[in-house]
């Protein structure tokens, strides 16, 4: 059979080219590994600071001192207001970092040789932060899910009531987990695809820590009741301003590093990352326009009201999904999937066409969050039409990813890392199909306000966003820390099944509850009166809310296992072989693929 012959030829070719690459890789590793021994270690030593030049250390100190002063001013100006508490948070954060910095302040100057290598320390710390936020955010997810099944799990505390903890969960996972993953991987991808080192060593740290300070302010604020109430844009004005500063620096890193690139063409993954950075900046600034009641108070009122505010909010909300949860993560996918599979993306052209399609269509679709409301009908119709069109570039992207794996299904079968990425692409396809469907007015009449929306969201976030991050991390961690493989490929496998089972249980529970809810609300008796009271529908949800909490628990368990596995890979993973280890001449990726299946 010709097909068979093809497959055999392919794998033979694969082997030969892999072998050549291996040899090259091995020679470089030999040179480097010995020198890098120390920096293989994880944080907790001064090694990361010793990578900074003394000028950079000085600048870092100046920035931290300025930030501490800001904290002091906030604490003083906001006395008696939650703003004051946040002043102390800023102060503690900056002083804490300053201590770390000072402890390594007089370490020797870095080896100028380091300029000939990539700068991955911020990515490493970013990975750790990503996993910390993942566990944190998903833990609160399981908790808020449980509250709907067992409402007295608040233990009568204000901070633990559903309304305050829900944004803790959403911010924790979207910004904490998702945002850190985007920042960490973007630095890595940017350098590899540009074949250039980051433009400097201070600004990536500023972005990483600055962003995490934003997340801390956001989350600690909700517990105290500080919120603008805008979904996914809850943090108050001062945190918003801070994020703008961080974001400008982030964007500058991209521009400056791209300017140093050795590849003439900008690889498409960077397009997606850049669209993510740029558009999120625009969305964030416009949607957060607000007037604080005083500079000594956390409270502000949004500039817009009513219809305008609703449209602005959902223009933001929808496009946060588009550019934060989609474009950025597609960037991740377009790099790590082909890289780990060892196969080029199926169609580069298609990835470009879908890029412009996504960038263009998404922005029109926000009004599908406001069907049948007081928003003018023509805006609703526009939103509906563009949501339908969105399916084309969305499925082009998902299809492109899957087609890349076509012919390598044996790898997908054997390698849980690759399977994570494949499942992510499948869920991305499901979530976008579902989204376009729900954007139709008649469907939305049923789905809006129900758990169906929640089911849809989690097909996207659990199935797509989380899975692609886990896949990317399992590929990236051994590579960055120069390990032969993950500490335990078995646990990667366990994590995969937990995550998949968790996501499926969650999504099915919410599809069921959402559709039942929607139908109950609109069912009439023969006499033409509404058949069910609202409370009937609340009662009907109970079993699904328990199922959802259980699905979430499975997913959280998987995430904890992943964190453990990453931790152990860093601490105790087998370092990439040196001279006398014959196995050493297998590159990280090839080896990983083999091991996972064992």
């Amino acid at each position, binding site marked *: 059979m010709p097909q068979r012959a093809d497959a055999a030829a392919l794998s033979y070719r694969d082997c030969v080219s892999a072998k050549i690459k291996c040899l090259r890789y091995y020679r470089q590793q030999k040179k480097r590994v010995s020198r890098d021994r120390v920096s293989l270690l994880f944080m907790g030593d001064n090694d990361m600071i010793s990578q900074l030049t003394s000028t950079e250390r000085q600048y870092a100190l100046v920035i931290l001192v300025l930030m501490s002063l800001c904290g002091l001013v906030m604490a003083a100006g906001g006395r008696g207001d939650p703003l004051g508490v946040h002043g102390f948070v800023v102060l503690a954060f900056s002083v804490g970092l300053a201590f770390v910095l000072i402890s390594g302040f007089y370490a020797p100057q870095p080896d100028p040789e380091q300029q000939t290598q990539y700068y991955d320390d911020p990515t490493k710390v970013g990975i750790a932060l990503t996993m910390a936020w993942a566990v944190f955010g998903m833990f609160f997810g399981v908790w808020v899910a449980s*509250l*709907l099944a067992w*409402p007295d799990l*608040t233990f009568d505390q204000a901070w633990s*009531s*559903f*309304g305050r903890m829900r*944004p803790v969960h959403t911010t924790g996972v979207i910004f904490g987990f998702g945002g850190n993953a985007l920042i960490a991987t973007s630095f890595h991808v940017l350098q590899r695809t540009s074949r250039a080192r980051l433009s400097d060593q201070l600004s990536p740290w500023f972005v990483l820590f600055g962003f995490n300070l934003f997340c801390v302010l956001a989350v600690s604020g909700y517990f105290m009741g500080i919120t603008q*109430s*805008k*979904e996914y844009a809850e943090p108050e004005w001062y945190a918003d301003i801070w994020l703008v500063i961080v974001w400008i620096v982030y964007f500058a890193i991209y*521009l400056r590093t791209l*300017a140093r690139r050795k590849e*003439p063409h*900008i690889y498409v993954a960077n*397009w997606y990352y*850049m*669209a993510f950075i*740029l*558009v999120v900046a*625009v969305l964030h600034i416009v949607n957060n326009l607000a*007037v604080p*009641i*005083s500079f000594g108070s956390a*409270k502000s*009122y*949004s*500039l*817009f009201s*009513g*219809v305008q*505010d609703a*449209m602005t909010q959902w*223009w933001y909300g929808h*496009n946060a999904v588009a*550019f934060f949860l989609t474009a950025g993560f597609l960037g991740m996918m377009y790099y790590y999937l082909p890289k780990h599979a060892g196969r080029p993306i199926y169609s580069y052209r298609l990835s470009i066409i879908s890029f412009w399609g996504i*960038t*263009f269509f*998404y*922005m*029109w679709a*926000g009004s599908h969050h*406001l*069907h*049948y*409301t*007081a*928003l*003018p009908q023509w*805006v609703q119709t*526009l*939103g509906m039409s563009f949501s339908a069109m969105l399916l084309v570039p969305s499925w082009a992207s998902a299809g492109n990813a899957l087609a890349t794996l076509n012919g390598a299904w044996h790898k997908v079968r054997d390698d849980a890392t690759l399977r994570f990425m494949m499942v992510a692409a499948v869920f991305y396809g499901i979530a976008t199909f579902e989204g376009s469907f729900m954007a139709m007015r*008649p469907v939305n*009449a049923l789905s*809006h*306000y129900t758990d169906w*929306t929640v089911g849809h969201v989690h097909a996207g976030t659990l199935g797509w966003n989380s899975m692609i991050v886990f896949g990317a991390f399992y590929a990236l961690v051994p590579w960055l820390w120069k390990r032969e493989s993950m500490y335990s490929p078995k646990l990667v496998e366990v994590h995969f099944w937990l995550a998949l089972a968790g996501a499926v249980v969650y999504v099915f529970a919410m599809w069921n509850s959402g559709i039942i809810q929607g139908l109950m609300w*609109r069912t009439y008796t023969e006499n033409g009166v*509404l058949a069910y009271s*609202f409370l009937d529908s609340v009662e009907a949800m109970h079993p699904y809310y328990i199922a959802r909490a259980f699905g979430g628990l499975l997913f959280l368990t998987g995430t904890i296992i992943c964190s453990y596995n990453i931790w152990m890979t860093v601490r105790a993973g087998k370092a990439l072989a040196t001279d006398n280890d014959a196995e050493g001449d297998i590159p990280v990726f090839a080896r990983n693929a083999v091991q996972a299946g064992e």
Partner: protein
Amino acid sequence: MREFFHRKLERKTISLVVAIVAVASIGGFVEIAPLFTIHKTVEEVPDMRTYTPLELAGRDIYIREGCYACHSQMIRTLRDEVERYGPYSLAVESKYDHPMLWGSKRTGPDLARLGDKYSDAWHVAHLINPRDVVPQSVMPKYGWLQRNELDFSKLGLNLAAQRSVGVPYTQEMIDNASKDAYGQATPDTDAASGVSERYGEATNVRVFDGDPARVTEMDALVAYLQILGRLTDAAYKQSASADAPTPVGE
């Protein structure tokens, strides 16, 4: 020419940046810009009033506690919603809502027309422990609202900020904000008289939380809940008039 253009687009990061922004911003601009002239198409409603300082404080508590995460305030133009909750929501009804609280999820029912539906005492009992009055409820308890005294000190600032974003509060209202908030919940004090003077006779001036001795966060929140859907009669009038759009069935 084309070739030149493409080469540039690709080689020059800036061009890519500009292209992304241009392509991305058009959709938002097209949809949002016209909404800022929308007031020309929305009928004026002369009876529309602003929130009193106490109601505004209650609204801020509603935001602080995240009630909007489970309750919408937007009745859609669907038959079952109108029958369940009341006349569908009009754009004017939230024109003083900075920010709007339309919500996106109904874990609990819509609240757009909650005002006057239940007694104050019912609300207080319900907020202290929802399951005392509605056994199947999954709503959290909000006992601290009854324990916390309302903080009046900044209400003037709140009103002033609202004015700066377009809500027609007068200087007099701003100056008397704290006093009016106190007065609205203590009908027997001197402070009470000014409230109806400034905000209209229809304003609810009473002890909302059942405790005349203290003005609590409960007072503020209940005052707000009791005004929901009551700032104007426009929606009721419209649903009575013949040429109103009929709600869509399914």
